[in-house]
């Protein structure tokens, strides 16, 4: 990124995005229609896209440009989040939409794409820049990248042109396959061309954690083992696998949520302040934190991790199927639909502070939050207060209602010094009524601008696999007696026991 431009006015508008073509592999798929096109359209609505801009959809189904545009119009109108659909703007936007049909296994496809990009460079003035979005199955990444490389599409037509590649999670299904995927990608691409998307990092509230920690002077002094007793990270879903049983069966909660999203959230909460807010500095600190996570020894897995799977239940009068009864799921499946782990960070700031992370499906409600529990006051001087365990708690809510709340003691009105816990609440949505951009909007724009701050780097991917791999290994060799929690409950009893060993309890979010 170059220095400030005389026409820039950062107080009023964002920097210009360079002209580019976005090539989406898997353009006929679910992610494209639900997230990618609505986000790109919304960026056009916000006037964030450059005048020289085009989108090329790629997948096998035969379609004309017109048919693709029509299909995308329906998807955008349907999946656009809290913003209006403007027909006039759509027509303008659709003129920059193109489609190339082909199979990624076919070398001819890449030549067709190369021809199309050359044409657009001229006709739509895309500046020879291209952002490739691999919205396809991870098993297809290597073939696609190799095909792009063979056709010379990993380099622009002129030296000043860039080529960037966004890939979707999962980045491997274990430590070894993550390294293998990286080798395949790196055979063709430089690390700085690869944008590994973790949409959690694009969420406004996750970014807000950095603002909260490093924009204020009063929290950081407390942010360490001297004042923090424990940290709890919860990502609960009330829904089940919603027809994705076959996929989920292979992944499980630890791989699907903790290895990537929640460890990234943990790194955001626990990392050291970067010297500057700049991609390399921020990612270095995140990576350093992830590498400091103490690997669980095989013999510790039983006490540091809990695997769960939901069974059938009745919720609000309606019968809910257990995981093994879901369509496409093996009736003997050993999949974790719930996972809880205890992690420790080995550095001066956090040594000895447990980070409890839990996630699961079919839990009582949909909520993602982080709770930082501070030490008790050293002495209770007020009568009746002893025995009350309500230490100060700072909760960062990621969803559904983004915000921050602080719990502290206050005096009950009336005579005597009776205390009661109260919360002080900051609600992001009600304090700033403006619509916040979705994670995909933020991340797509960042990639177009060449800002990788919120993208995952290979060393981060490997460090987070290293943190969960010992657990996966032991779980893979153990036969569990499932189901072990009822749909609609807060997970298996063993999870409570895991915390009880340190005298802690899970909070009810």
């Amino acid at each position, binding site marked *: 990124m170059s220095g400030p*431009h005389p026409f820039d*006015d950062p107080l009023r508008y964002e*920097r210009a995005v360079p002209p580019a073509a976005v090539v989406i592999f898997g353009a006929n798929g679910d992610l494209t229609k639900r997230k990618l096109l609505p986000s790109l359209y919304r960026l*056009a609505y916000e*006037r964030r896209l*450059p005048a*020289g801009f085009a989108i090329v959809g790629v997948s096998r189904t035969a379609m004309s440009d017109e048919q693709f545009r029509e299909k995308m119009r329906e998807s955008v109108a349907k999946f656009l989040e809290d913003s209006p659909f403007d027909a006039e703007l759509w027509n303008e936007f659709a003129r*920059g939409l193109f489609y190339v049909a082909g199979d990624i296994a076919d070398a001819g496809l890449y030549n067709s794409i190369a021809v199309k990009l050359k044409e657009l460079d001229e006709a739509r003035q895309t500046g020879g820049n291209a952002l490739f979005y691999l919205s396809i199955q991870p098993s297809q990444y290597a073939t696609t990248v190799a095909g792009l490389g063979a056709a010379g599409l990993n380099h622009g037509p002129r030296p000043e042109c860039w080529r960037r590649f966004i890939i979707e999670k999962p980045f491997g299904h274990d430590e070894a396959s993550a390294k293998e995927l990286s080798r395949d990608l790196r055979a063709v691409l430089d690390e700085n061309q690869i944008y590994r998307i973790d949409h959690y990092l694009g969420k406004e509230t996750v970014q807000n954690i950095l603002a909260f920690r490093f924009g204020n002077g009063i929290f950081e002094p407390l942010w360490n083992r001297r004042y923090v007793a424990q940290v709890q990270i919860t990502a609960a879903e009330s829904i089940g696998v919603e027809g994705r049983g076959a996929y989920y069966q292979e992944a499980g909660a630890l791989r699907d949520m903790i290895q990537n999203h929640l460890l990234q959230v943990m790194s955001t909460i626990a990392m050291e302040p970067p010297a500057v807010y700049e991609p390399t500095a921020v990612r270095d600190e995140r990576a350093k934190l992830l590498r400091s996570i103490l690997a669980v020894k095989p013999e510790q897995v039983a006490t540091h991790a809990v695997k769960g799977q939901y069974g059938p239940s009745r919720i609000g009068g309606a019968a809910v199927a257990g995981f093994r009864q879901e369509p496409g799921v093996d009736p003997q499946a050993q999949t974790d639909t719930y996972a809880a782990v205890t992690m420790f960070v080995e550095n001066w700031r956090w040594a000895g502070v447990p980070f409890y992370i839990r996630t699961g499906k079919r839990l009582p409600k949909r909520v993602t939050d982080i709770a930082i529990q501070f030490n008790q006051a050293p002495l209770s001087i007020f009568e009746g207060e002893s025995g009350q365990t309500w230490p100060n708690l700072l909760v960062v809510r990621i969803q559904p209602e983004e915000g921050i709340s602080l719990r502290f003691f206050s005096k009950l009105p009336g005579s005597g010094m009776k205390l009661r816990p109260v919360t002080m609440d900051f609600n992001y949505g*009600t304090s700033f009524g403006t619509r916040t951009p979705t994670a995909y909007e933020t991340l797509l724009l960042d990639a177009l601008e060449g800002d990788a701050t919120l993208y995952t780097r290979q060393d981060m991917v490997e460090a987070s696999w290293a943190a969960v791999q010992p657990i996966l290994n032991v779980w893979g060799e153990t036969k569990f007696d499932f189901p072990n929690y009822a749909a609609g409950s807060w997970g298996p009893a063993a999870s409570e026991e895991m915390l009880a060993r340190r005298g802690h309890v899970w909070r009810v979010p």
Partner: protein
Amino acid sequence: MEVDAGRLLKELDENWRQLGKGEGSGVLRACAMTLIVLVREGADAQELGVTLADIMHEHPNRTIVLRVGEVGEVVARANLQCWMPFGGRQQICCEQIEISASLETLGAVPPVLFGLMVADLPVAVWCPDLELADLPELRPVLKLASKVMVDSSATLDIREALPALQRLSTESWRLADLAWARATRWRETVAQLACTEGWSKADEAEITWAGEGIPPAAAYVGAWINPGRLVMKCDTPEMPAAGVGRIKSVCVTAKGRQVCLRREGTGVAIEIERLRTGMVFPLLTDAALLHEELGVFGQDSQYERALAGVQGVLDAGV
């Protein structure tokens, strides 16, 4: 009748207490600043109410509306403005105080305002009427604020507004003009194109507009682009529909290439050599413009430079 800040605040407290007692799922008190709104006695109360309610959502504040009339005592009343956010469970409420005063009694108002300002939060003044803002009697009120927002676009020609803008820009507060915010979308698009084209200065620019007189927004854009040669001219004497803005086109040339933005209905067509694309500019409402201005509290060097450059644009001959 004597107006007492303490009594007004007590009234507000009582309102909050009543609201808290009511059935339902709670009330959220939101406040990020004090906003003092200065209007003439005859200003359309309903239109103003809609604008203020609109900006409340994004900039919750304690609003103090000061109506300035020809004659009359100082009178005041306080109440709460509440709304339920879409899909929300809690009502959000903000405080609103209305004060009426005449030019003779204005002197009694600043001490009341002092008592009414929310502690530790910024104070902004919005006075859409430039002539009113420029009245010496109102200087003590403006002095309470760190930011004073006027709107010169009601003055159809920048030449009439410029002296007042210059006077107001040398005081202790930061001056903002909603006419500058009216030009933001044009500037943003020019900046994007210039960045893509790799221009750091323009050789030539031509700006056209609708309606008689040089619109302040057009003059600002001319001063901001600051090209080697500037052409400014009226395109049609007909005034545009409300909210569209008077600028009709902005064309910039540099390094032998030209980019043009032309108003077409609610949108803008962009021409870069052979490429033609377009975008939609949002309608300019007072609420949208205020929202933009309230997002800028520090020094606004781009505006300051543009205001300083307007005289040069006029001197170069239009």
